[in-house]
């Protein structure tokens, strides 16, 4: 009998191959997960800055020579902001330099001033320190995103501007604060003012429509197919149909929405109503498949018990089987909604890709959606929009994580072993 401990050269090679083979698997997982961490990590690093914003304070001479208490609406706030800037840096005289100086604050600074004065008319008559949103370049500079070692001509801020910013900072008139505008504002051409609320509302409205349409239809279809439909060619056909719909590229649903909902039925373009309808086409198969699995997990004994005491098949299904399967159905629906929240392509087809400043309040308003906003911002050349894009992605991911967590908790809580 041969020695079991003896290792022939062939056996050594086979064991080496074994080790190698295991390392292929480990490396594959490492690469895939490494990519995940790299992607989420870099987006987080990139986007975290957008949650703070640079503000700078100016001494605004709200004196009677510039503004009258009787005509607060008619005052030239723009001139006031510019004057304050000139007062801060009196040695700036050249026209070109002045324009650079004015660029330190956001173009909307005059509106911010007006809002403050209207809110508190007692400010008029004295020179007051007022905080303004800094322009995106100042913001980028403060966050260290502008490389000042580069040649002056190739960067957005020249040395003079940097000097001014540093001076303001020394006076304590510049600070980084929480960026509430990002969460409370709509889209804007100016990155320092752009916010996600309009897109978020668009997504919320679309998803509500999507849920209201696809959840009832989905579960009723699932109940019929699982509990009532005769197992014949027809129900087999429906089943194949549903499986195939689940794998249709999402952009095709967008084309359907464009051709039928918009062009044929004439529903309003860019509206959350149509967005939700298109998204519900995609979530429907997911919900049906999940709901059927959930119904199948309810043991036949429960149906038999109900039928045995004289319940009709409809009563047996709705009183006894469906309540047990409902958590599973809801889990499927939430997962379907999470996917719908992230989907972009079909919304592009139905025009939810517009520049939306106002926050939509109804399902017929023009709106965009969170992922579409990401797509739009990603296309903008400004460095500051890159930061906003990443931040919007973080917000989107947080919502996806929350939805999935809810699904997991639901599943854990109601998971029953029959």
């Amino acid at each position: 009998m041969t020695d079991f401990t003896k290792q022939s050269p062939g056996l050594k090679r086979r064991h080496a191959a074994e080790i190698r083979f295991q390392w292929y698997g480990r490396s594959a997982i490492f690469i895939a997960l490494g990519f995940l961490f790299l992607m989420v990590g870099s987006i987080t690093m990139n986007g975290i800055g957008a949650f703070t914003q640079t503000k700078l304070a100016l001494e605004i001479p709200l004196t009677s020579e510039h503004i009258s208490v009787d005509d607060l609406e008619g005052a030239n706030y723009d001139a006031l902001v510019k004057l304050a800037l000139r007062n801060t840096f009196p040695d700036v005289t050249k026209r070109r330099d002045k324009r650079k100086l004015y660029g330190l604050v956001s173009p909307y600074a005059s509106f911010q001033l007006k809002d403050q004065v209207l809110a508190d008319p007692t400010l008029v008559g004295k020179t007051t320190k007022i905080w303004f949103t800094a322009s995106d370049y100042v913001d980028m500079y403060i966050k260290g995103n502008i490389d000042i070692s580069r040649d002056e001509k190739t960067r957005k801020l020249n040395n003079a501007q940097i000097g001014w910013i540093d001076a303001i900072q020394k006076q304590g008139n510049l600070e980084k604060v929480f960026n509430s505008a990002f969460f409370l504002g709509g889209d804007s051409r100016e990155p320092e003012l752009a916010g996600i609320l309009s897109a978020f509302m668009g997504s919320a409205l679309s998803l509500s429509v999507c849920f209201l349409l696809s959840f009832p239809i989905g579960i009723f279809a699932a109940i019929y197919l699982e509990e009532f439909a005769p197992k014949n060619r027809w129900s087999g056909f429906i089943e194949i149909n549903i499986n195939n719909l689940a794998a249709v590229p999402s952009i095709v649903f967008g084309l359907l929405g464009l051709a039928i909902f918009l062009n044929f039925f004439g529903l309003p373009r860019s509206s959350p109503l149509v967005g939700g309808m298109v998204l519900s086409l995609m979530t429907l198969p997911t919900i049906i498949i999940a709901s059927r699995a959930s119904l199948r997990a309810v043991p036949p004994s429960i149906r038999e018990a109900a039928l045995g005491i004289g319940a009709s098949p409809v009563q047996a299904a709705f009183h006894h089987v469906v309540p047990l399967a409902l958590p599973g159905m809801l889990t499927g629906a939430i997962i379907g909604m999470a996917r719908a929240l992230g989907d972009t392509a079909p919304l592009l087809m139905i025009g939810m890709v517009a520049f939306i400043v106002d926050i939509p309040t109804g399902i017929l308003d023009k709106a965009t959606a969170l992922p579409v906003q990401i797509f739009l911002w990603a296309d903008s050349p400004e460095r500051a929009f890159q930061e906003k894009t990443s931040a919007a992605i973080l917000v989107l991911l947080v919502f996806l994580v929350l939805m999935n967590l809810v699904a997991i908790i639901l599943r854990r809580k109601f998971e029953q072993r029959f």
Partner: protein
Amino acid sequence: MNVVSHEDKSATEPQSKEEPIITARNVDVFYADKQALNGITLDIPANKVTSLIGPSGCGKTTFLRCINRMNDLIDICKVTGEIKIGGQDIYDEKVDVVSLRAQIGMVFQKPNPFPKSIFENVAYGPRIHRLVKTKGELNDVVERSLSKAGLLEEVKDRLDEPGTGLSGGQQQRLCIARAIAVEPKVILMDEPCSALDPIATAKIEELIDELRENYTIVIVTHSMQQAARVSQQTAFFHMGNLVEAGVTEQIFTTPQDPRTESYITGRIG
């Protein structure tokens, strides 16, 4: 052959009339916290058929799977004690399970031919162990193994057809041929006929009898008739203990232990 039951620990060294090929000493097996085998001590003689019998869950299959260390595949399974084959402790850390299993063949409860051709099924072992150098040699090995398993006549014209297309009995003989092809010293059989009809069973039993000339066979069976028909030695397991072992005839005619008697007469099991 002489055997000591678990209860009688005073005589741990059985005096053997002939040199056993497999010797087990105080083998305990645990699945997590549950003990499946209690101090099994058993000698298995060479070139004989030894059958392991007992009611289901008694540990006979567990013991069989200790002999080629198939239990290693189960994470929670722990084996203590000593099993020697040809004088070597197979649980020694220097032992290579691959080379061990190459020399201890195994046939399973349900026929499990690979979804490949009949030829490829038998050629699998010789290929991975590089036992042959040329295609001609491989053909010889396959043919010889099929012939030893009594299957050659039935399949020689369709070696390229899938092994899964054979009948149950043929599939099991194909599995035996596949095991023989790597030229093991010992063949372990785990209820090889439990999924077969009586005619196929008879053929396999006949085959086992022929194979004994060249191989040591250990067979787990739930059928006492089968044990009586094919084996020369029998070991009776009950609730993880080895109750009694010895010459088959003696076990069936004059069992020493009341539990053996109950089982053989059909009162437990």
